[in-house]
């Protein structure tokens, strides 16, 4: 053991000596340092690559969410339209269809709040119209959702772009009803 210890000591001494020589070697051979530096550089590149992968995969998850939003928005609204449609056909199916002359819709079916009132009062035409409103709201909801998603990810270029589209949409809505 003692011998071993002494050997170890010796060994460590030897190690430091070799360590020193390594350092010396490293000092002498200064040229091999650039590869080390480039190694460091490549790890930075790797990090950047990872960041890109992360942003692409989060782009992918945003795409998934938007795809679901559109799908379920359109399926929900068509379920409502279908229900209202069946009731409508049961009630008025045998009456003659006439769309040759434009009469416009009753005022209650021409504004979002009126449609909600009509749907709640049990009118099947109001119910269909409510489903159609949900359908129209689906792409708008998609813009709102992407605006919030880009805001959360601090992707400010797209925050501004989606906000602009939202302002355009609201402008047309406000211009019509107010």
């Amino acid at each position, binding site marked *: 053991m003692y011998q071993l210890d002494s050997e170890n000591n010796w060994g460590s001494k030897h190690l430091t000596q070799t360590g020193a020589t390594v350092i010396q070697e490293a000092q002498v051979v200064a040229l091999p340092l650039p590869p080390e530096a480039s190694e460091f550089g490549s790890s930075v590149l790797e990090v950047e690559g990872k960041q890109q992968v992360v942003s692409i995969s989060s*782009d992918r998850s945003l*795409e*998934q969410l*938007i*795809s*679901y939003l*559109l*799908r379920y*928005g*359109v399926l929900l*609204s*068509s379920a409502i*339209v*279908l229900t*209202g*449609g069946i009731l*409508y*056909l049961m009630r*008025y*199916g*045998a*009456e*003659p*269809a006439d*769309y*040759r002359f*434009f*009469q416009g*819709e009753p005022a209650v*079916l*021409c*504004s*979002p709040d009126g449609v909600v009132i009509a749907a709640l009062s049990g009118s099947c*035409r*109001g119910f*269909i*119209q409510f*489903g*159609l*409103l949900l*359908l*129209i709201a*689906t*792409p*708008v909801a*998609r*813009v709102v959702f*992407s605006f919030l998603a880009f805001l959360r990810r601090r992707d400010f*270029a*797209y925050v501004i*772009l989606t906000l*602009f*589209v939202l302002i*355009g*949409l609201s*402008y*047309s*809505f406000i211009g*019509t*009803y107010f």
Partner: protein
Amino acid sequence: MNILEFSLLVWIGSFTAGFLGALTGLGGGVVIVPLLTSVFGVDIRYAVGASLVSVIATSCGAASAYIKEGYANLRIGMFLEVATTIGALIGAFLATIVSVKSLTIVLAIVLLYSAYLAQRTRPEISDELPPSPLVTQLRLTGTCPTPDGLMSYKADSVPIGFGLMGLAGVFSGLLGIGSGAFKVLAMDQVMRLPFKVSTTTSNFTIGVTAAASASVYLARGYIDPGLSMPVMLGVLPGAFLGARVLVGAKTPILRIVFSFVLVVMALKMVYNSLIGGL
């Protein structure tokens, strides 16, 4: 014809409209308006209202599939929506000044020309030029599935494409139609995106363009629930089917279908403006 029979027939026609609309990126309105006015004798205002509903239904239904499959490019779509929104607002303003009838002829000529342009085959591989700073900044790049695996692409000539999209918005604000054709043209011919990416991204954005004019149509009483119900319920399964077919379809065939629909649309517009329709 009673309401039940009428609804069934309109449902079948709308199914076709949704199918073609999803496949070409033009939206269901291309088929719905002439179908309702010429075949069923529906007043143009009701037809336009139902067409608006069909465009949104096609857009949402098909786009959900196209995004999932990796064809539609969200960033390019959202970037170009800005141009269409500005254009639509300008168009709505111009509608009070410009004669719509003379404009219809101009649009018909442009449609015929774009039908011709869409037939010019070009390699669907992006060139070696580095992307412009704008493209890098806004990340207007992507990959799309092809039979030979994923192909990466980037947007070219973004300012011109953006301008053409603005024009698409002006026309849709003025006439309520024709925006889909311009959108596909801008992305396919100017920004040099793959054809399937162009049509699917157009599909993704036409919903928002239509929603922008929805409140006007609703307020004027153009959206009739009895008429829009079979239209929407027909267009949606048609759009889902169209989205499935597009994935497997060969691009040259899609181009032919696209051009064919454009030519019919243009002839119909010339006919209407001579007879006195829209």
